[in-house]
């Protein structure tokens, strides 16, 4: 390639901008955020969920989640009187546009269960990553470094909750970041912001003033698949025994 004076004139400022990005060390918009002061989780109050799909749509908007993939989704369980162990679970398009009407006369119980990354403190997904592209950040949020991810999808298989997918255009693993770009600036997550009933609440387990502590003391709260000892931090209130 012949580098002319014109190319040099164009390339030099570009290189200067690139170098600025290389040198960028700390987030400029959240100077007061200290990772060691937080340990993030999420409280999901099943009896409050109305299955409107606001959280799914908000998450897609906020995080540019491609259609057909979900960082959070809502499932509707139908536990019939005769199949207590095998509930019927549906989640059409992640519950984004609501759910079909329940047939009149259908016996059994129905309820909604919002699902998302559980931000496990002993997460299986980070343990299997061969290149150090996914990790538990010092504030307890499980993140993916898209520049390091190879797209091998080991983590997609390892997640017992099915919370990861391979991004169709970026070809790297993708999942809920607990709206890391929001919570580090004092905002709540997009799904919590959009939930009309307060069925989702961001929780900071290291903050003694966070209402999560009182809630955990006074309610019967469970995590998904506790037998897998993942240290899940998505706490479910009113979780039915049939939920997988």
């Amino acid at each position, binding site marked *: 390639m012949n580098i002319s004076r014109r*190319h040099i004139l164009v390339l030099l400022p570009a290189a200067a901008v690139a170098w600025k990005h290389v040198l960028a060390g700390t987030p400029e918009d959240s100077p007061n955020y200290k990772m060691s002061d937080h340990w993030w989780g999420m409280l999901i109050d099943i009896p409050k969920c109305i299955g409107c799909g606001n959280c799914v749509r908000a998450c897609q908007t906020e995080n540019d989640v491609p259609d057909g993939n979900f960082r959070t989704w809502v499932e509707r369980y139908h536990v019939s009187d005769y199949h207590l162990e095998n509930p019927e679970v549906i989640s059409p398009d992640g519950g984004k546009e*609501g759910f079909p009407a329940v047939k009149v006369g259908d016996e059994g119980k129905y309820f909604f269960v919002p699902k998302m990354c559980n931000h496990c403190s002993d997460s299986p997904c980070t343990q299997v990553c061969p290149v*150090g592209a996914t990790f538990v950040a010092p504030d307890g949020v499980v993140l993916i*470094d898209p520049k390091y991810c190879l797209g091998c999808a080991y983590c997609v298989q390892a997640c017992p909750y099915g919370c990861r997918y391979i991004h169709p255009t970026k070809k790297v693993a993708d999942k809920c970041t607990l709206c890391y*770009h929001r919570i580090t600036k004092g905002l709540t997550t997009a799904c919590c912001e959009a939930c009309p009933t307060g069925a989702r609440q961001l929780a900071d387990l290291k903050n003694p003033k966070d209402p999560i502590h009182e809630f955990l003391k006074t309610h019967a709260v469970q995590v998904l698949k506790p037998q897998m000892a993942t240290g899940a931090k998505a706490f479910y209130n009113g979780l039915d025994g049939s939920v997988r």
Partner: protein
Amino acid sequence: MNGLKDVGHLFRFLGLFVIAFLVFWVIRGFVVPKSFGEYGHYRGAAITEIANHPIKFAGHQACEQCHTDEAATKAKGAHKHVNCEACHGAIYQRLPAAEAPPESLYQRMLAFAGLRLPADPPLVRHADDPMSVTPVKPDSAVLCARCHTASAAKPKEFPQVDPAEHSGGVPCATCHNPHSPVIGSDTSATATTGGAK
């Protein structure tokens, strides 16, 4: 001492190892990002990059700065816990490519040199340009039904209706004020429970 007569080749071999290790160490210094290992076996700078993702839902506090009337009405009504963007959508919107502002000279120079990656259309915020960037006014017949359509899966205490039977297709906002939906509660400060029954 005959055993050490030919020991020279071992030292040459050792020398090769030392050179190879130094080459490895120098290359590693260039290839491994500086922040790798800062917090653990990953690139510490990735945390900053993820934290710099643009925000689109500004939060109800941003809306309430200007829309004080609606905020006051809502604070007294049954929808006081529903945040503005839950119904009105995100305050930040992506401009359609056709309406994006003209590129700066510098951006065009980058494009000329083939250095620019295809970028997402720019984000604009209703709060920054309230006249030209306006959230779409939701259709109450669709919006309200999304939450309030009766279903056996919803909590019993949640106000639910069969929209067709309840209004016969008339938009909900004809009778209800969405910011304080209990009929007659617009001016009352006591309506805290229930909605459209």
